[in-house]
């Protein structure tokens, strides 16, 4: 297989998965580990349970932990990216019960009982989700850092159109929104790509949307 550090990636994935299993147990232990100032003003840890990519997860977290950091640091699901940590870039987009959100601007403990889907839950290198495959085909990325957010956002965005949710560029609020480029661009505008792959991303989404229609 042609790949960059393909063997490394393969190996790393396995390690990450193993570490993840262990992490469920170790997270609270780590957070409770006393530092020099432990105990002073330390907020008590809280439990939260939700499913991530179909797997039930039970976490004990500092209440300050965002959903993004819970995914990346506690569960080692680093596919979801931290670009700004302030809701200004969209790199952290995940699906919460099917709806796209910025995972940096919500606390993990606020979501007991929910189902979270990250880019890892959509597909894997050997079984790409159609949206992932379309991004590869249309070169809908460059550095790759905004890419998971773009893909999660695109998947949920097409569902929003399907559900008839209008957008800023929908001409007639009473009519069903159309799958035009202008609609896709407006609806994807919460996902910044500094490499400027926008034109290709819209081509990728259009292909997927077309095959859905």
């Amino acid at each position: 297989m042609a790949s960059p550090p393909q063997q490394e990636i393969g190996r790393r994935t396995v390690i990450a998965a193993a570490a993840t299993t262990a992490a469920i147990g170790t997270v609270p232990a780590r957070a409770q580990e006393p530092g020099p100032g432990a105990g002073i003003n330390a907020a008590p840890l809280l439990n939260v349970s939700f499913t991530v990519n179909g797997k039930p997860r039970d976490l004990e977290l500092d209440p300050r932990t965002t959903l993004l950091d819970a995914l990346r640091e506690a569960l080692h699901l680093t596919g979801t990216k931290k670009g700004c940590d302030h809701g200004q870039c969209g790199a952290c987009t995940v699906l919460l019960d099917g709806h796209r959100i910025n995972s940096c601007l919500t606390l993990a403990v606020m979501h007991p009982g929910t189902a979270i889907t990250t880019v890892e839950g959509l597909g894997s290198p050997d079984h790409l989700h159609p949206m992932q495959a379309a991004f590869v085909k249309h070169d809908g990325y460059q550095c790759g850092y905004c890419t998971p957010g773009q893909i999660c956002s695109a998947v949920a965005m097409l569902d929003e159109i399907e559900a008839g949710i209008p957008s800023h560029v929908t001409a007639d609020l009473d009519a069903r929104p159309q799958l035009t480029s202008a609609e896709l661009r407006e609806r994807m505008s919460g996902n910044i790509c500094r490499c400027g792959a926008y034109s290709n991303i819209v081509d990728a989404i259009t292909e997927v949307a077309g095959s859905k229609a």
Partner: protein
Amino acid sequence: MKPFTYERAASPAEAAEAAARRPDSKFIAGGTNLLDLMKLQIEAPAHLIDVNALALDRIEATSDGGLRVGALVRNTDLAADQRVRRDYAVLSRALLAGASGQLRNRATTAGNLLQRTRCPYFSDTNMACNKRRPGSGCSAIDGINRQHAVVGASAACIATHPSDMAVAMRVLDASVQTVNPKGVTRTIPIAELHRLPGDTPNVETVLEAGELITAVTLPKPTGGSQHYRKVRDRASYAFALVSVAAIVQPDGSGRVALGGVAPKPWRLDAADAEMPKGAKAVAGTLFAEARPTEHNAFKLPLAERALASVLAEARG
């Protein structure tokens, strides 16, 4: 972000009670603005009361033909509601012009009203800001202020209110329902919810400590042609330089509120009365007390031109 304790309230009464018990607490719903600010320690509550389970997420018809929008209705859901799209198009349009799809999916009706300014000096804790640290001064007045208020501001603060939704709510004469920690409810006309900065820009609304917004009520539809025109540098995912919410009746009468120009949605009865005369007269009245800076003076002609464009569109 300062450490905080966290609890999930099950009812408005419980939430209000928790707020009374913990004066250092904040309600959290969507969290899209609060957490942003907590990360920078511009907000630093010691206790968070999660109100998301409060069953305030419905949009219901009122007995007088209006709509009661629960405080927790997400911006996406409010914008997409068929009744809102049909009878309150200006509100749908304003919501859809704001933020991004992801943010609208989390941001709530009440939270949107209570969001804080995007003044960059407010966001930078190294800088003086009377809103963030009362008495420290205003860095924006003689600083970078292209985005700032041209009217309704004070010598203490020239920040704008960043909401699009609130501007539409204002032109619709919405009212805000609240419950306080004692369980007392009240209705606040949207016009009175936000305060002008005066000498106390840190006090942004008339809400009392622990008072929780439970709903926003839209009066009976007014009909007319409804418009929301948002002007910004980039085409999406940006705050307004100027926005115009307008309802224009066939006889040329109507209402207008502006966003991006003032510390609150900017609407004056006297300006509404000028609607039949056109944009120049309306803008002249809205901006009679305007005190722009060198960098934001463009907002005056811009708002007038945007309004003229909206009125032309309304005439068809």
